[in-house]
């Protein structure tokens, strides 16, 4: 085995790092969930994203024929690792990582020409319309209705937990086009302009008080037939295709590593009971254990990226990466709150909050990491059934 990066990969990492230190304000402490919480901040995010687009980095992994760089999965992983470590905005998961590859695989030439360039340039913000009030882990049960009506579909129903819908321009979604077919067979994959008549978007503030999630209601919304991706009633295959986007989960360990470094600095200056926190053996043990887990998470991610670079489809490993990385983030958040003691209660608005209230934000947000993007239960099911061959019935 060889765990080293090539000189080109190292150079690329240095370039990304340099770019981020130049372009990102030094006091940038915002987390993904609060990017869209404030108009000025979101404008900064969009502008930042456009700068990444100019570098070609937004579409680093896209094939050259679709205007991408055609970079390897490992290069893409390095990029995602550096952005996550810097907590930088601009990782366009919905547009570049999800919808883009779907269009490349299932879109017609016209659809590709129409929709791919604005994703690549960072002009159009997409959001994802999968979950509904009654469809969470059981995604194939979605009920949003799309009725065939000549040259368009008419949509009625609602999507829920739609991240950033309130600042997005368009939504890709799964809708039921054939209510009488078995649940996996009657879905279609549609693209919908959020400015369409009949759409209303309501905020769902999360427990950290941030506006990230929304409920998107559709009331007789018209979607042109040209916005159907793939065949009608075959949306399930489109949505669940084994798309070749980077899925190493490197951001979990990268974010965790950054937080652990900040906590280390805190522990080296804060005293409790007459000694530095960092001098307590129990504190040292916790730091070492979390450091070890971050290394485990990072190496699992590198292995996923490497497997992808060989053309393999690391389903089991990707589930392990998500499962382990998100549960690790929770453990770090809990440890961080322990370390901060009473001061852990202070929000980012308090001038006395240690680390600008970051740990509290991460703690409050940590409840969602093991739920969104496939719950830990779903990941464990995948590992056990697809990975280890345990029987479903």
């Amino acid at each position, binding site marked *: *085995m*060889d*765990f*080293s*990066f*090539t000189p080109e990969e190292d150079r690329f990492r240095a370039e990304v790092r340099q770019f981020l230190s130049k372009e990102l304000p030094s006091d940038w402490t915002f987390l993904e969930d609060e990017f869209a919480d404030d108009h000025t901040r979101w404008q900064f995010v969009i502008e930042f994203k456009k700068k990444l687009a100019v570098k070609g980095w937004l579409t680093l992994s896209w094939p050259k024929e679709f205007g991408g760089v055609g970079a390897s999965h*490992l290069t893409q992983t390095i990029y995602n690792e550096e952005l996550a470590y810097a907590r930088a905005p601009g990782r366009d998961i919905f547009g570049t990582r999800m919808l883009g590859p779907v269009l490349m695989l299932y879109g017609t030439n016209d659809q590709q020409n129409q929709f791919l360039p604005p994703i690549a340039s960072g002009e159009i913000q997409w959001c994802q319309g999968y979950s509904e009030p009654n469809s969470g882990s059981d995604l194939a049960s979605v009920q949003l209705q799309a009725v065939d009506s000549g040259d368009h579909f008419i949509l009625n129903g609602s999507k829920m937990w739609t991240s950033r819908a309130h600042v997005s321009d368009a939504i890709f979604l799964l809708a039921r086009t054939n209510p009488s077919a078995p649940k996996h067979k009657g879905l279609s994959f549609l693209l919908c302009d959020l400015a369409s008549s009949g759409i209303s978007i309501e905020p769902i503030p999360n427990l950290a008080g941030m506006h990230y999630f929304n409920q998107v209601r559709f009331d007789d919304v018209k979607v042109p037939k040209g916005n159907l991706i793939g065949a009608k009633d075959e949306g399930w295959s489109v949505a669940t295709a084994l798309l070749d986007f980077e899925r190493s989960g490197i951001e979990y360990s990268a974010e965790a590593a950054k937080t652990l470094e900040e906590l*280390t600095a805190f*522990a*080296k200056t804060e005293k409790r009971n007459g000694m530095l926190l*960092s*001098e307590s*053996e129990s*504190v*040292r*043990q916790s*730091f*070492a*254990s979390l*450091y*070890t*887990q971050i*290394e*485990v*998470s990072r*190496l*699992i991610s*590198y*292995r996923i990226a*490497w*497997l992808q*670079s060989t053309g393999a489809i690391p389903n*089991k*490993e990707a589930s*392990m990466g998500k*499962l*382990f990385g998100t549960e690790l983030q929770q453990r770090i958040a809990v440890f961080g709150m322990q370390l901060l003691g009473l001061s852990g209660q202070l929000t980012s608005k308090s001038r006395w909050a240690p680390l600008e209230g970051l740990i509290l934000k991460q703690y409050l947000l940590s409840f969602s990491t093991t739920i969104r993007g496939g719950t830990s*239960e779903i*990941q*464990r*099911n995948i*590992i*056990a*059934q697809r*990975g*280890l*061959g*345990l*029987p*479903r*019935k």
Partner: protein
Amino acid sequence: MYLDLTESQQMLRAAAKEFLASACPLQVVREFEEDPETHRSRLWDHLVELGWTGLVIPEQYGGLGGSFSDLVVLLEETGRALLPGSFFSNTVLFSLPLLAFSSPGQNDHLLEQLVSGEVKGTLAISEPSGSYHFSDVETRVSPSENGFMLTGTKMFVTDALISDYFLLAAVDSSSKDNPLGMFLVNSDAPGMEITGLETFTNDGQARIKLDSVCIPASHSLTQVSSGEAVLSKTLEWASVAKCAEMLGCAQAILELVIAYTKQREQFGRPIGTFQAIQHYCANMATDLEGARIVTYRAAWKISTGTTSEMESSVAKSWVSSIASRLVYLAHQSFGAIGFTQDHDLQLFTRRLKAGEIMFGDEFFHNSKIADFLGL
């Protein structure tokens, strides 16, 4: 980056699997454990024939010149098969440090004898305190007529009763700079008293009492590096090598659980269809995925000769921490039958626990990691 075994490593693994499946079924493991005296050297000649005793020794001594990563591949398989006997101690605890720290020409003949299997060696560092801290070494060394004289007590010396040589740590209290020395001691030297220890794997650990044991000056292994350097590197290699064994052992446990829960029926269906059992298995597999990648990363670091102490401690900390979790989940999946002596699971359970204890557990290595982190 290349995160798979090389072609020659895959061949090594396949050959090891095949040999161990036929020569070392679990019945052999049980026989060793029940009567170590009779079986102690049972498989040795086969291992020599396969070239395993010379795997990491250069060709000039008759060995195969393999890397530390190659050794890790092999140890994963011996760990999976619970190979009993002194392969681990002889290779990892003796051959590796002897090779790395002998001065030119110092131990050429001994290295050849290790390859040919004529002699065996092991490491003697721990003492009644049961610790791996250098400062807990109390065995004394002092200059004697033609060399050194050693007095003290060593504990938990693996395979001491069948080893011809010990690589032994002792302190010279008169030396201010490098009080810790490492010495080659013959097992039949006058003044040595070796007594077997009753351990829960009956794996041939022993207590050695040294009463004014004299060795020649040429038997010091600190002519090139300091005693601390020899000992810390030896312990580091041992900890990563132990991770590899544990990895194989833990993988075997997971495979036992999967096979069992697929066929064991309760409430009219295989228990492997229950989400609770599936999630136990997913947890075990995820822990193991991490264990494998941190172990191979540490082995790669060691093989390339770069600074590796931190990575090695990360590996042993992680593999030790998952061992306890994994065996509890395995036993929970097996229910009552796994708790019996007749069932094979307990053979793996006890050895995985022993591995966790050897060469520093999670607590020991976390302490080292915290030091590295500047805490």
